[in-house]
């Protein structure tokens, strides 16, 4: 079936289910069948062809959009990892490395891989690194800055033993979003960065070690620290991990010790990892995201009853 819907928020044209819940889109009053497909012959009935009787699943395997968060959070509150870093800091390469190393065992600590709504997107990232590969084995391309207000989201689900599943979403946003957020916190075109800062439950702050040892060190240092400070002002006690990427190339110890001290100033004592794409320790980022930690004191509303007993008493 090809056609389009008059509703702006309906994605039936891109293969997602009808927003109004109609099983066969052609039965929906909002739907317009494309002229060229209206008279398609029924003779070539294929067990997987789209004759309108099939079921559209709410995910395609590609990166998820904002509306799809409900899909991953329907089973319980999903964790949303905001991956924050400058252009070329290695954000997408880090995500690729995490998935690639995780896929070698399928588990991290005592947590098993329990599924993903964005398998195709993960594999697209990973295909850039398969040797010999379609692209000749280079790091993933920069995430295109499409001007959208929400980043593409990548999904992984985990489970430990017979516990409930835990869903984790990762933002894969272009560095330009954070550059604009640096330049002007309230800028119209920094909405994407603000969305991440507001909605993430965890932050992965990506520091470009190679950049700090390169010719452009001054600018990288300045922008990295300003970005860290900006993030710290919006953080509201949510957990943050600093990932120092590209650790397989030369780095500058003197600058780094200064940088680490400044990051501690902004984030307090925080977990930090030195990683490079080939390092299996990349999966430690997943441990940071999955593990339970005591709820930060500031996140608890002060009027909440201290116990279920009290809550019951108040209801009486």
């Amino acid at each position: 079936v090809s056609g389009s819907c008059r509703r702006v928020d309906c994605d039936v044209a891109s293969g997602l289910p009808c927003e109004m819940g109609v099983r066969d889109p052609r039965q929906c009053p909002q739907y317009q069948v494309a002229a060229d497909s209206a008279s398609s012959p029924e003779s070539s009935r294929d067990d997987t062809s789209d004759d309108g009787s099939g079921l559209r699943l709410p995910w395609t395997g590609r990166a998820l959009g904002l509306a799809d968060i409900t899909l991953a959070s329907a089973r319980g509150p999903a964790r949303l990892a905001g991956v924050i870093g400058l252009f070329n800091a290695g954000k997408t390469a880090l995500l690729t490395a995490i998935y690639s190393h995780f896929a070698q065992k399928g588990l991290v600590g005592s947590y098993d891989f329990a599924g993903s709504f964005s398998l195709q997107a993960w594999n697209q990232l990973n295909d850039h690194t398969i040797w010999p590969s379609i692209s000749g084995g280079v790091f993933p391309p920069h995430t295109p800055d499409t001007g959208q207000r929400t980043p593409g989201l990548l999904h992984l689900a985990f489970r430990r033993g017979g516990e409930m599943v835990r869903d984790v979403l990762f933002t894969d946003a272009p560095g330009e979003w954070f550059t604009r957020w640096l330049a002007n916190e309230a800028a119209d075109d920094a909405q994407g960065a603000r969305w991440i800062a507001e909605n993430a439950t965890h932050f992965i702050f990506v520091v470009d070690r190679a950049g700090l040892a390169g010719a452009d060190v001054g600018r990288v240092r300045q922008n990295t620290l300003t970005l860290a400070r900006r993030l710290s002002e919006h953080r509201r006690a949510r957990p943050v991990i600093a990932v120092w990427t590209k650790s397989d190339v030369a780095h500058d110890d003197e600058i780094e010790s200064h940088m680490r001290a400044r990051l501690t100033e902004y984030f307090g004592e925080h977990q930090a990892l030195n990683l490079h794409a080939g390092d299996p320790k990349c999966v430690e980022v997943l441990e940071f995201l999955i593990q339970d930690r005591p709820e930060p004191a500031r996140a608890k509303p002060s009027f909440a009853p201290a116990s279920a007993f009290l809550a019951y008493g108040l209801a009486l």
Partner: protein
Amino acid sequence: MNFPATTPKLLVLGGPASGKSTYRVQAYQRFEHKPGELKLLKSVGDFTAIGEDVDRVNQGLQPMHTTSNKYVTTDFALVDAAGHQYDLRFADYDGEQLRRMSSSNLLSASWVERAIQAESWLLFLRIDSIRAVKSFMTSPVDTGPRKDAESNALPQPIATGPVTESNVLEMLQRLLFVRGASLRHRVDTPRLAVLLSCWDELAASERVTAPNALLASRAPLLSRFLAANWQPHSLHVWGLSSTEKSLPKDIPDTEFARKGAENFGYIVVDADSEDRDLTIPINWLLQPR
């Protein structure tokens, strides 16, 4: 003791050339000629959808590739050692249907219905040729900019390659979803039997490993996905060699034909532990809950 016959619904899952057709023939040969845990209660009423395949295997030839877009079934009246009777509908189809299922988010009405109704799922995997997710470790990364001259010299991946780990994962996720399994908790139903087919074609070092361990090393994400989402008692992994050797397409293996197809094939239960009763996985799937 005899119980009234039940009609369990079996969902056969397997990509192209995953060994579905050969196993179906050989399971039938066991039901009919060499009963194990399951045997035929009466002769097969309608033989049309399996007859040609049975005929070829009995001659020492591999079954023909299942015709594109066909979905055929054969009914077997079976009885187990305890006297439970089953009217089992055993399907065969071309595995391309499943490959397409993983590449599109559209699931046809017939597959939705099968997924919802079947409480026993039988998954075939060619573990010797499955393509797992690659790693930086095994596949070093060229960190430099892409050089077109070099990349042109590299062998190009083929679009329709072997079934990938991701294909199988996506297919299972989709089938579970249409059943309404949110996967918030591990599922009890459907029961899932995984058969690692063409076990005889594995390297000698791999043939001595336990099927579960081989699945974990060849397809780690899939292996953990299964353990994470099925109750341990609802999931079982076996190795499978339906004919103990690959049968030719054109010139019959007369040695195989003379000894009798029903005398070939085994199930790998554990490391170095085989059983010639090919009906074991089906019997496990059908047992009353």
